[in-house]
């Protein structure tokens, strides 16, 4: 019988190893799996490469992971956000590496990796500094840049509703990168506000099919970055 549920965030992230590439869902605080990230901080894995659209805010969630010195490299499209101070300080001090990727290219690199596509051509970034070092090719008179799929060891994502097979439904714009991250990682770890039995989800409404998901942890009433920042929380 398939049951992907895991008892706790701690158990779900226990095997994340030093030097792993970890995809972290979310766009700003929408969809950020804060409880899984905090469990990863407690677990202690370091020298991580982390992929997220941003770099977190305040000193909770992703920003706390960066502040704890666990992230060697960030791959993201927009490392500056309101209340984002941890990453800029480390970056200016030369203590964290940044790979800047246009947002749509980031999403497509993840989708491609999950779909068995090693590389693809995109018109995005042609003629800009972000094209440097990449192959250019013309199709029907227009120039494109070659981008490669972005594979990862783990994905940490958040959803509203899951079943024990790992079928997922999200909350509004908290969906963002999570479905393509679930595809691109060897091991996808999900925190769900609620976990139900197979058959309780309408198959027509499933957004991420369970085949892309390995572990599901129930985290009722997850925290939001903005609330924790407003409370002055600094994790741990």
């Amino acid at each position: 019988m398939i049951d992907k549920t895991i008892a706790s965030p701690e158990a779900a992230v226990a095997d994340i190893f030093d030097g792993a590439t970890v995809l972290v869902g979310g766009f700003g605080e929408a969809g950020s799996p804060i409880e899984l990230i905090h469990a990863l901080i407690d677990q202690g894995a370091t020298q991580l490469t982390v992929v997220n659209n941003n770099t977190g805010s305040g000193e909770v969630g992703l920003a706390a992971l960066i502040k704890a010195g666990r992230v060697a490299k960030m791959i993201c499209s927009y490392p500056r956000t309101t209340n984002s101070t941890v990453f800029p300080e480390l970056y200016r001090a030369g203590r964290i590496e940044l790979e800047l990727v246009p947002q749509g290219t980031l999403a497509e690199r993840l989708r491609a990796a999950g779909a068995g596509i090693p590389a693809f051509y995109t018109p995005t970034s042609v003629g800009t500094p972000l094209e440097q070092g990449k192959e250019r090719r013309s199709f029907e008179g227009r120039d494109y840049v070659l981008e490669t799929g972005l594979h990862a060891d783990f994905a940490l994502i958040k959803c509203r509703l899951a079943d024990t097979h790992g079928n997922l439904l999200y909350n509004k714009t908290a969906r963002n990168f999570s479905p393509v991250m679930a595809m691109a990682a060897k091991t996808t770890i999900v925190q769900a506000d609620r976990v139900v039995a197979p058959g309780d989800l309408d198959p027509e409404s499933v957004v991420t099919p369970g085949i892309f998901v390995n572990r599901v942890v129930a985290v009722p009433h997850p925290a939001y970055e903005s609330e924790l920042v407003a409370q002055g929380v600094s994790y741990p």
Partner: protein
Amino acid sequence: MTHTASSIGLSRDEMARRAALDIPDGAYVNLGIGIPERVAAYIPAGREVIYHTENGLLGMGPSPDAGTGDPELINAGKRQVTVLPGAAFFHHADSFAMIRGGHIDLCVLGALQIAANGDLANWSTGAPDAIPAVGGAMDLVAGVKTIYVITQHCTKGGEAKLVEACTYPLTGRAVVDRIYTDLAVIEVTGDGFQLVELSPGVDYDYVAERTAAPLMPIADEGRET
């Protein structure tokens, strides 16, 4: 705003209102962060425009009333928004397929510099201590059918933003179609900047002096619109 000659030309809201006049009924539109966001408030009555936000929503509505928002219902600027009837949520790869695949009709963005050939620089000044951040701007200019720019005609220091060639790092090459500034509406043509409309109280020479590239004057008749 304190450094600009604020008595001459349009205010930020007037610029947004002017650009809104040119957004056609039924268009799928992506609005950039800042002044472009204000365009939504000025769409003429009788037109229906569907707003796309690249973080996964078509059918975006205005900000929620105080206390009714959801921190997971936000726009690309990470501000809380609402959904209108007929809205749809989707993931990031689908969202940028809409953009890169040419399905979004029009995008309104801000700018640091625009060149006479339509090159746009709007993501980085290239300053050595700056944290580089691009977001979705390069995808938007590469994929959306029509690109409008709303910007002050000059920087706060009085330097021209409409130039012969951009000195800041580019967002995209030859991508801008129209520019709405405090002083004028300008079309980017194959031959360079074409003046389309002057703001009230502004004459051609005033705009041309503040444009660091040739500016073709308004033709009386037969003007391409």
